[in-house]
């Protein structure tokens, strides 16, 4: 006991190791958690002390969240936060510390961790029953799960199937469901992936994927017209997003462009982290939080550093190439612009035209091009914000958002999610992750516009 107390006291000074599961409405909070010195965001629930449950969830994602909760090794605890003071509603975490102020997450997590490790608070119990999904032993003559030698589905899990691989052999293939909370992927993204070794042979979307998790729609959505600005307003209510505001009223160019620069830099921070440069990613994340149009030199330094870093170029060039025809099928946005498609709603806006705006366009269309394009756009955005001199946009029903035009029938995220299966097949796992991260998909955006599109088809 003495040793345990000593260990708990020693551990008390460390940041709380947290695994974050991010639902709808938490996009404003989640990316910045890594800047909190009281938190250490970990990649695996097995390495966590505290589970952070941020945002709102629907029935399916709640089940996945409960499964993640059971993976956290005891002693474990839950800190939850949700926009609009409805934290506790429907969550299965009975003993969660529910917060209404997201700025308290760090201190609450540390306090909870200390109580758990010192034994002053009981570990959060399992939510899901620990049983085999199917009976198994003893059906066939060798005790196997079915009549044939490899028949049956032991524990309800089918055995690996055979399929041709790229060397012309017929080898085992396993089906893996990825998501909705796998750290390198955007929260809410779910994919059914068939892998052979680490080569992806087939990708499909689970039926519920787009409605899942991130859907902020509720009982009202049948009253709205497809593509209407009301749908976007609903989105905006959660997002506090200047881009949504720009759909309806004039907004200062400086606001839009600063938000764009910050978003692109925060995206870069995450991309760097997934590439293995976690510490540098944190530096960039801090820059994303603090950058101002008047002091843009750090971004120029960053751009130079990126160009010089051969290892990043090695890992991203030629990965996840979006062809010119695929880019043309996208509604627009950075991914299309990195593949040579220069559409940009900003070109049509008089305020931008007065500032002499020219979209940044790259030709190659691979992950490296998308990295470079976003950094160049961040630099450009800061320059525009600095020179804008108080000019405002003219609302036209379309706005160049962070990922593509907003107000169009199909959002860039929806188009990118739909493109994923054909893009990822044949890639190795590492390349596939690089590609997905470089596309910068937002499942909340995809889900809202998916709802809207579905209504459009129904009416």
């Amino acid at each position: 006991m003495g040793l345990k107390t000593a260990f708990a006291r020693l551990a008390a000074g460390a940041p709380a190791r947290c695994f974050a599961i991010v639902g709808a409405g938490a996009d404003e909070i989640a990316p910045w958690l890594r800047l909190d010195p009281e938190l250490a965001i970990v990649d695996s629930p097995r390495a966590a002390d505290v589970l952070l449950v941020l945002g709102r969830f629907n029935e399916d994602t709640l089940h996945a969240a409960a499964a993640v909760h059971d993976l956290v090794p005891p002693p474990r605890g839950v800190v939850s936060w949700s926009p609009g003071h409805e934290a506790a509603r429907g969550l299965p975490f009975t003993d969660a510390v529910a917060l209404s102020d997201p700025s308290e997450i760090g201190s609450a997590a540390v306090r909870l961790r200390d109580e758990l490790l010192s034994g002053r608070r009981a570990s959060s119990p399992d939510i899901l029953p620990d049983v085999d999904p199917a009976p198994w032993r003893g059906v066939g003559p060798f005790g196997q799960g079915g009549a044939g030698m490899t028949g049956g589905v032991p524990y309800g899990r089918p055995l690996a199937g055979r399929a041709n691989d790229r060397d012309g052999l017929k080898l085992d293939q396993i089906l893996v469901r990825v998501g909705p909370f796998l750290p390198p992927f955007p929260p809410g993204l779910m994919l059914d992936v068939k892998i052979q070794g680490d080569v992806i042979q087939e990708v499909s979307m689970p039926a519920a994927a787009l409605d899942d998790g991130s859907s902020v729609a509720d009982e009202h959505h049948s009253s709205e017209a497809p593509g209407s600005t009301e749908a976007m307003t609903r989105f905006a209510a959660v997002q506090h997003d200047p881009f949504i505001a720009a759909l309806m009223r004039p907004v200062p160019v400086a606001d839009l462009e600063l938000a764009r620069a910050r978003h692109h830099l925060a995206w870069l921070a995450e991309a760097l982290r997934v590439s293995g440069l976690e510490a540098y990613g944190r530096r960039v994340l801090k820059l994303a939080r603090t950058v101002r149009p008047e002091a843009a030199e750090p971004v120029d330094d960053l751009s130079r550093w990126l160009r010089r870093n051969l290892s990043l170029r090695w890992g991203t060039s030629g990965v996840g190439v979006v062809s010119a025809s695929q880019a043309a099928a996208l509604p627009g946005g950075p991914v299309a612009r990195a593949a040579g498609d220069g559409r940009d709603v900003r070109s049509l806006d008089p305020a931008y035209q007065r500032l002499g705006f020219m979209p940044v366009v790259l030709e190659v269309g691979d992950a490296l091009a998308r990295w470079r394009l976003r950094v160049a756009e961040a630099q450009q955005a800061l320059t525009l914000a600095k020179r804008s001199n108080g000019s405002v946009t003219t609302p036209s029903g379309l706005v160049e958002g962070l990922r593509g035009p907003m107000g169009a029938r199909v959002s860039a995220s929806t188009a990118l999610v739909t493109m994923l299966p054909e893009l990822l097949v044949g890639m190795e796992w590492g390349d596939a992750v690089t590609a997905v991260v470089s596309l910068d998909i937002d499942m909340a955006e995809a889900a809202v516009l998916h709802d809207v599109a579905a209504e459009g088809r129904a009416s």
Partner: protein
Amino acid sequence: MNALGVVIAVVSVAFVAAAGVYVTAWIDLVLARAVAGLEVRPLDALIAPLRWAAATALKARTTTERPDAEAWALAPALLAALAAVGLAAVPLAPGLLAADVANGIVLFGAAMALVVVAVFLQGWSPNSPLPMIGGYRFIAQGLSYEIPLAVVLIAAALPARSLAIAPIVTSQEHLWNVVRQPLGLPLYLMAGLGLAFWGPLALPEGQDLAGGSSLETSGASLLLWRAAQLLVLVAVAAMGTAVFLGGWLGPLLPGAAWMILKTLFLLIPLIATRHFVARVPTERYVVVSWAILIPLSLLDVFAAGIQALMAAR
């Protein structure tokens, strides 16, 4: 060597192993804070690894659905044991050698060849897809680094005309192997990074696999696994020092002090790669390893052979 000498050597290897792991964790933390643009507080960083270890040790060891439980429990211990054998093969000072065998280089090579087994088991046994991909990756990686590693070590043994490590150190009395065989040390360090699955070669445990082979591991197993990984890094740096940087040789200071200084000199850049070099894609690494590193290491051993022949005449 008498029994007392062996005991002293074993105790000092254990001490060097523990201190090495701790110092490595500390250096890594200091570098991470510096690169992240945070205030570097070396003294705070000194206690941070202990805090992490304490918190990890207090967590339960969890399990998955139908794991290969024995292999899963074995893997971290195996990795730690192999790293310890690797370190024990290095003479820490004149006469201070725990594994006093006539084929020290081969012993080191054999221990390092089995690291592949430990990492693969760690990835395979939880019965979970992402760790398994991590395990597969390390097999591809292991087959790629093992050959350059073995070949450059043999090249370094050539001038000494011995496979024991102490004679290899003393053979560098006049000229260190890093000068005599300029290709040797860079190739060795690249292979060593792969061996420790660290930094750009952390392929089995990359962020794209959300932790890969140790994704499902928790509690004391995770603690042992991390410590063992750092110990592999320390063993690589120590062996590199003995074989390429003249080991304990040096003026004024005692041999052990030179050994420690030179080991740190190799260890710091090895650790730093994690913060400056992005993870390389598995397939490209394998291609480069077979198409460039292995031919270069063969060039290295041929050059060393010619030099040895010239010296013998």
